[in-house]
């Protein structure tokens, strides 16, 4: 079963639109959702959560329509935005008391364990917490009702590598249960390389690719050379080309290229740059 299924999602704003966005996240996997700022990642996520109303298209979470079964779906998801959106005069202990009334499955013990693990002060007001602390609190809030699906919108942006590593470990721990799934939007591609099983790339409101991470990293290769050398590559093997100051780079399908060509292993960032800035 798919935890998330999106078909032909369409949403229009002035100056920007999501165009027929389609992808799915199989249950038990982590989907990395990449794209530059303003590519449409947050808009897609907000449409999924019904924070924005879609023009047309179909969004299924746990196989159910996201508007028709909104409340039952929302009992099983945890959401983390790029900041903690709760009134700043509250503290972590007060949030526990509030959430206990919101979720039947709220686990106070687990919540305070995570806060202790992250050294988040229990009684300090949110406005007095650092950005890193706020994000850790936000993640503890998203996990403490034991959701089946985490929807993360840039949860690690603006955080230092140490905190990011702690947070990624927690997500990996969450994925120990094979019924759990994560949609992880980020432009920090190194984070996704660590935990994602699939990568979906969005650019200008359109999905450019949605594939398994291993296929991207092991089936693709980068050839660097001058224009003549690139012209010798079989045309059907070339996915994207980029012209730079020192020649031409080509993203190619590794298996379609003769071993005589020396290929470099691409990173997710390389692939993203080829798709966004390169040409066919």
């Amino acid at each position, binding site marked *: 079963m798919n935890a998330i299924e999106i078909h032909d999602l369409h949403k229009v704003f002035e100056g920007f639109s999501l165009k027929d966005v389609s992808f799915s996240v199989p249950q038990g996997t982590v989907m990395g959702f990449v794209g530059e700022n303003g590519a449409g990642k947050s808009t897609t996520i907000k449409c999924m*959560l019904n*924070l924005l109303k879609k023009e047309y298209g179909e969004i299924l979470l746990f196989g159910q329509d996201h508007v028709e079964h909104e409340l039952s779906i*929302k*009992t099983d998801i945890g959401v983390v935005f790029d900041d903690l959106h*709760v*009134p700043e*005069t509250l503290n972590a202990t*007060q949030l526990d008391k*509030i959430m206990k009334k919101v979720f039947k499955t709220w686990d106070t013990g687990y919540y305070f364990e995570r806060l202790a693990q992250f050294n988040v002060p229990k009684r300090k007001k949110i406005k007095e917490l650092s950005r890193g602390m706020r994000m850790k609190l936000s993640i503890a809030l998203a996990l403490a009702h034991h959701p089946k699906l985490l929807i993360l919108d840039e949860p690690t942006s603006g955080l230092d590598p140490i905190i990011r590593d702690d947070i990624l470990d927690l997500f990996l721990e969450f994925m120990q249960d094979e019924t759990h799934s994560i949609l992880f939007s980020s432009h920090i591609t190194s984070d996704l390389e660590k935990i994602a099983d699939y990568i979906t790339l969005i650019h200008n409101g359109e999905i450019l690719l949605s594939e398994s991470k291993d296929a991207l990293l092991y089936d693709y290769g980068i050839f660097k050379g001058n224009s003549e050398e690139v012209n010798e590559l079989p045309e059907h093997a070339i996915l994207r080309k980029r012209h730079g100051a020192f020649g031409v780079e080509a993203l190619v399908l590794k298996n379609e290229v003769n071993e005589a060509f020396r290929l470099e292993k691409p990173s997710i960032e390389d692939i993203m740059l080829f798709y966004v800035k390169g040409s066919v």
Partner: protein
Amino acid sequence: MVGLIVKDLMTIQRQMKAQAFVVLFLLAMAIFMQQSAMLLAVIVFIVTIQAITALAYDEQSSWDKYANTLPISKGDIILSKYILSVLLMIIGLIVALPIIFFINLFTNHGDTTEFFLTFNLIVAFALSLLAILLPIYIKFGSIKGRIVLIALCFIPGFLFGMFNEYIPDMAVTFLNLKPFIYVAPFAGLLMLWLSSLISTVIYKRKEF
């Protein structure tokens, strides 16, 4: 929904404590001026209007973006604000009434019927004010809401000034209305209920 009300009460807790000092000052003034009705009006308004403060805190932190990821319906989110405001009004009355009876006991303003009329008017006015303010703040947010509010205050004044000669004597009108004052709080509650329906429609159309 209980969670939302608890959250709002926690959020405005500090604000309420700060307002307690204002109330103490007014209490001294009311005793000095022997004006218990004024004290009642001020306490009820200060406490009731905290529902608007709660909305402002929500807006500042983009709470609605988060609240709508939780298993709470949009209708309940709005209803919680209305229940909160009525709850605050009841708290205001519980705080104010013993003080007022105490003041009345020691002053000459012991006329219960007269006081009951004033009480009804104040409660009805506070409920109507909420019925008008809440949809405006939910629709426009606290900054634009304030502008709309000021405009709304000026328009009736302006119209009143324009058509003054066509309007019958106010004192006479009020005297005629006196029997209806007993039902005024119920009319206020009805307005608040209608207002909550309007706010829910507005909120359901909103995007976050």
